């Protein structure tokens, strides 16, 4: 079996169990919330329009935005209740995901339940009243069973939507089958993307079929069919959830942003922790802003960030002091403000740089960003998704008065493709990216030092700063990874022919730190 497929299958039970847990919770909550609201909407027609409209509005919010919005909301809420409860609650991962998905599941459940309940024959309602049923008896004995088929159809729709949308929860740090899709997209591992899609689709189909059995059972009042459907759901859910019981949820949560280097470094940290006998769990695909907050609030325990990013985004500084000064000030600031510890630098820098194809630069006579500024109005800039909204970009633009003909954002993989294809002339590259060497790109000099240094730093959450196991595990990494090795590791994952999974690249780096990891230990 292909190594990448084997890797995907290895993590399937873990991803699947998280995905099923998340979807099941959201669906159950959606039903518990949606059905009573539907009863209210039918009993009090004035509520009907507002309820259905709000549910429909929620549906129009893109799933990924809904998930993202819950993070600051929960963060604020957590800060609000923290003094009352003594501690806050995690604002990342399961909670925002389950809340967003519940809201998503609400519309089909609510709409169908309202349609089902108001579609009951009025003669039957009159008969129920006339034989002396109380409103409650009428609901439970007459309206609910008669509306059941329509209500079940709504629940089926909600289930399929929820299982599909749950793949997006990867972005807020909740493990799901979406981990395949997002990491596959970043590392250009299409097999992984397909694997994730297929797994989610199969899960949705199976769930839909079992719910269909329940629906048929409810419609035909066939106890056996109903029981078979419910039993299938129960057994399937229980089976999918067993990995959760088996392994204690990882003690150390390692965070990663959404690009290859971050996946590799997170795997490397996890590997070091496991070597010390600890269990580690990855939270991958987090955004730059989210990940630091998550560390400060203790949702994740450790991750790698870059000094320049923290300098501008967290400290809000616009100057670019010398490396050593910056590192000192940054460490003090993070310790004072957020109780986050900078454990140390890995030894390489991953700066934002502007890069061009070498022959194109030669043709225009460009070697520095200052040279570039004169040609910029005729050139197109390609960037990653966040660069154009980052302070580094405004600093660069200000320092050199850059004004490009057009500016376009890509996922990193496609950005390099666009440069190679000539769709754009300049890109915002990362200095540790293996593709700079592989594609023979020219990194433009920054004579005005508009962009600060970007040393890769291991950051530790306040909760983990006194943890001896973590210190022992990660100490060997400090200063141990030169930029050439990082580029090599990145290229192993990003190259288009014969790429490897981040875990494999992490093993390559681990071997640098402790040679016995590669099995090369002398007897």
């Amino acid at each position: 079996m292909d190594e990448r497929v084997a890797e995907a299958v290895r993590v399937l039970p873990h991803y699947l169990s998280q995905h099923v847990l998340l979807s099941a919770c959201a669906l159950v909550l959606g039903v518990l919330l949606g059905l009573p609201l539907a009863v209210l909407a039918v009993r009090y027609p004035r509520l009907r329009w507002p309820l259905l409209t709000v549910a429909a509005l929620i549906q129009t919010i893109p799933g990924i935005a809904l998930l993202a919005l819950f993070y600051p909301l929960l963060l604020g809420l957590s800060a609000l209740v923290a003094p009352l409860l003594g501690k806050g609650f995690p604002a990342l991962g399961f909670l925002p995901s389950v809340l967003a998905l519940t809201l998503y599941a609400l519309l089909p459940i609510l709409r169908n339940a309202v349609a089902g309940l108001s579609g009951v024959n009025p003669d039957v309602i009159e008969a129920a009243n006339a034989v002396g049923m109380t409103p409650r008896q009428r609901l439970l004995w007459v309206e609910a069973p008669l509306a059941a088929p329509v209500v079940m159809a709504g629940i089926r729709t909600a289930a399929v939507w929820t299982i599909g949308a749950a793949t997006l929860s990867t972005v807020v740090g909740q493990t799901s089958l979406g981990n395949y899709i997002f990491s596959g997209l970043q590392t250009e591992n299409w097999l992984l993307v397909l694997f994730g899609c297929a797994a989610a689709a199969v899960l949705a189909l199976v769930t839909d079929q079992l719910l269909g059995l329940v629906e048929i059972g409810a419609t035909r009042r066939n106890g056996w069919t109903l029981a078979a459907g419910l039993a299938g759901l129960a057994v399937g859910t229980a089976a999918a959830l067993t990995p959760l019981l088996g392994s204690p949820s990882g003690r150390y949560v390692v965070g990663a942003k959404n690009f290859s280097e971050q996946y590799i470094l997170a795997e490397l940290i996890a590997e070091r922790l496991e070597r010390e006998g600890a269990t580690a769990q990855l939270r991958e695909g987090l955004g730059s802003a989210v990940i630091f907050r998550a560390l400060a609030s203790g949702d994740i325990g450790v991750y790698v960030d870059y000094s320049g990013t923290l300098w501008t985004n967290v400290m809000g500084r616009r100057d670019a002091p010398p490396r050593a000064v910056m590192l000192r000030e940054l460490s003090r600031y993070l310790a004072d403000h957020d109780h986050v510890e900078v454990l140390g630098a890995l030894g390489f820098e991953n700066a934002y740089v502007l890069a061009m194809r070498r022959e194109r630069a030669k043709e225009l006579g460009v070697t520095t960003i200052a040279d570039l500024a004169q040609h910029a109005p005729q050139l197109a800039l390609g960037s990653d998704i966040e660069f154009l909204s980052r302070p580094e970009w405004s600093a660069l633009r200000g320092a050199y008065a850059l004004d490009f003909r057009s500016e376009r954002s890509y996922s990193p993989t496609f950005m390099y493709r666009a440069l190679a294809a000539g769709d754009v002339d300049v890109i915002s590259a990362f200095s540790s990216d293996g593709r700079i060497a592989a594609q023979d790109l020219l990194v433009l000099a920054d004579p005005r030092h508009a962009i600060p240094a970007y040393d890769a730093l291991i950051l530790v959450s306040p909760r983990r700063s006194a943890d001896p196991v973590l210190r022992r595990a990660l100490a060997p990494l400090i200063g141990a990874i030169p930029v050439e090795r990082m580029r090599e590791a990145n290229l192993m994952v990003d190259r288009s022919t014969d790429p490897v999974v981040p875990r494999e690249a992490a093993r390559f780096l681990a071997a640098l730190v402790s040679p016995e990891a590669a099995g090369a230990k002398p007897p």
Partner: protein
Amino acid sequence: MSAALIEIDRIAKSFDGGRSFAVREASLTVPAGTFVALVGASGSGKTTTLKVINRLIEPDRGEVRIEGMPVAKIEAPVLRRRIGYVFQGIGLFPHLRISENIGITPKLLGWPPPEIAERTREVLALVGLPETYLARFPDALSGGERQRVAVARAIAARPRIVLMDEPFGQLDPVIRDAIGSAYRALHEQLGLTTVMVTHDVQEAVLLADQIVVMAGGRVAARGTPHALMASRNDPDVSALMDMPRRQAERVRAVLSDAGNGDG
């Protein structure tokens, strides 16, 4: 005539906040054991007058009493379990078997299951349906059979009073006549007090002891079928009550024409 079982005392009801009245001021007493038919044109207020008795409609003014007790003082579900109700829409519960449909009110009253089962078989026989029907669902029955089940459901909990709102309106004439007569027999046999709304004067004349003619939300006339058909006091009432006789005369004329043609 025995004492009044149901007293409807100057009730009024508006469905549009007082702009128009379905019932303006209607009073009516129904002695125990009588079969009363409410007749009148559409919008005369006959159905509203019927439905205030078991509180399916609450009057704006006035009061309904059963055995001297104001019905407003009895919780509506409790009141309705004591009164049988049959209506044009039939309203059998489609997801329940015939046995469960018939046994619903005894169940709501908390009868023990064996007793419910026995009573269910008993009333099914009373309305002339075979016991094999008990396990069927309503959609397996014809319209007439369903209305028989509805009658069985109405009398299952041994009510003293049965209210009927155009009960046989949707049935074809032959079945309608048969079920009407069968119900009248049950009314006698079980000592029921029946109030029936119908727009069919002939049906009222053939089934009821007393006919109440309603017009414009008021009681226009009441009396035995014979008395009302003989009365000439009110031209509207006469026009309505003359209907059966005029129809009978026309039918007779058709028959005699046909007889002459044959001869």
